[in-house]
């Protein structure tokens, strides 16, 4: 293995670490023992070419895939995610690349999907839609985007609004770890700026953000730690201040060994 400038195991700021993650889909070796770590209050970037395994790693960290081998630690203790709910309960929120929104449901319903608030007694529990609507309104308002009404169906929203909904959903629960898989890939300049300010705000409040991005400028601007993936491995880790776009490109393509 290559030596990696990873934080030491004693580092108390280490909020998440994944070690030797392996994931195979039949004969396709999507992850071949990838290791990354994230620190509290930092934006950690994950970059790499298409097919390098970024999204598969994200899906392992968010509980959609179960790794074939390797360990994931959160705040130093081992976790084992079998469902996205496990990851969510352990404090990992994810903005999936496809946003994981349901078009025929309203904004507030998407917000609270899987953690609905109910009221009632015993087995007779009904959705507390009023409470959920106002909470969703509050969470979306914090994003200061051209906020859609929380009662409108996601189908009616623009791409930027959908992104805002997905990000507000992930960011709004006070979770210590937020993963964003290409959150600005489909956005215009203004909307990208808004998403970046949300990322900064999350970081300021002590959240560890994992940012998957193809945009090196953005990565170097926002993140403190960069992990480079190639062919199912995290081949290099760099502090953002110690690297530049040229080096990152070289690491991604393999022109430069880590």
């Amino acid at each position, binding site marked *: 293995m290559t030596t990696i400038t990873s934080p030491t195991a004693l580092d108390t700021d280490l909020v998440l670490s994944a070690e030797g993650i392996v994931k195979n889909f039949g004969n396709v070796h999507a992850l071949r023992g990838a290791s990354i770590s994230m620190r509290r209050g930092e934006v950690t970037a994950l970059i790499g070419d298409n097919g390098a395994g970024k999204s598969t790693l994200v899906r392992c960290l*968010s509980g*959609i895939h179960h790794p074939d081998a390797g360990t994931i630690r959160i705040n130093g203790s081992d976790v084992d995610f079998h*469902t*996205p*709910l496990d990851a*969510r309960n352990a404090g990992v929120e*994810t903005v*999936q690349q*496809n*946003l*994981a*929104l*349901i*078009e*025929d*449901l309203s904004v507030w*319903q998407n917000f609270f*999907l*899987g*953690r*609905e608030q*109910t009221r009632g007694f015993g087995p007779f*529990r*009904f*959705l507390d839609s009023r409470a959920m609507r106002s909470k969703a309104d509050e969470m979306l308002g914090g994003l200061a985007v051209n906020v*859609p*009404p929380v*009662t*409108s169906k996601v*189908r*009616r*929203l623009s791409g930027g609004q959908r992104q805002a909904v997905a990000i507000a959903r992930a960011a709004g629960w006070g979770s210590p770890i937020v993963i964003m898989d290409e959150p600005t890939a489909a956005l215009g300049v203004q909307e990208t700026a808004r998403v970046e300010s949300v990322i900064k705000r999350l970081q300021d409040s002590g959240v560890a953000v994992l940012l998957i991005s193809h945009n090196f400028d953005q990565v170097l601007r926002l993140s403190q730690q960069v992990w480079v993936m190639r062919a199912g491995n995290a081949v290099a880790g760099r502090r953002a201040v110690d690297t530049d776009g040229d080096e990152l490109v070289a690491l991604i393509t393999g022109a430069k060994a880590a």
Partner: protein
Amino acid sequence: MNTSTTTTAISVERTTPASVLRDARHLSFWAEHAAPIGLVALVIVFSLLTPSFLTLGNVSAMLAAAAILVILAVAQSYVITTGGIDLSISATMTFGAICFGIAFTAGLGFWLSALVGIVGAALIGLINGLLIAKGKVTDFIATLGTLSVATGLALIFSNGRPISVLSPELLQLTTGRIGIVGYPFILAVIIGVIAWVVMFRTRFGLHVQAVGGSEEAAVANGLSAKRVRIAVYLISAVLAGVAALLLVARVGAAEPAINTSYLLNSIAAVVLGGVSLTGGKAKIVGPILGALLLTALSNGLTLLGVSQFYQPLAVGLVVVLAALLTRFQKR
């Protein structure tokens, strides 16, 4: 078609008389409300053509006749909301009826026999759910298979003969009424109301819609699509078991008949009710109105003296027309 302006507009949807008038200019309005509009149109046409259509006696008879289809349409609506389909629904009803008949003949009494019938039907639903959710068998194939299995079991258990059931409770169920509305229809309405509340006011209902809308997104949000799928096929089968009791009450016997028209009409009612077969858009009132429409259609045609042979033709035309209209639904 004027969908480009309506799809981009983001607004809180409220229904006012003015908004209804405005919407009526669009084809999507007619598509969205095919069942109530069709029902009203049918009632008007048939009342003009035959004075006996809108009499208390006939309305009462129609509601009684509609009860089974209403329950099956509600059941089918749950399955179709998840993007599935239950082709075994009428065979499950038949199987439930036979289970009830056998239990009753064995002397278990009405209530225990009813339970046996419903549990028997639920077993078919459980098999459907497990095949589809765990076995990853296509819903169409799985329920086509259990359609045949349930029909076969009903024939085997009953030896191919009707089991006559003489139960005072069943007699009460068919003859009892409040005003002009008989108990069967009241039961169907109660089931409809509960189904509506569960679909639109509970976590489970929201999860049904979510899984139908996008299974991948639902799972990413921590839902268990498997559990939801098994549940909807169970619900469908349990309701088919309840409908089986009404069927036995109506006929006075548990018959191992195939009841294909109930299957087709249950799907037709759901389509008429504006539910998309691709799932995700839940409706309960629409399918109930669709079931009433189909019942009124065959009742009216019978009153007009139209040969029984024309009824499947009429139902078919109405359904195909409704399916064509759904293309213009607002998305």
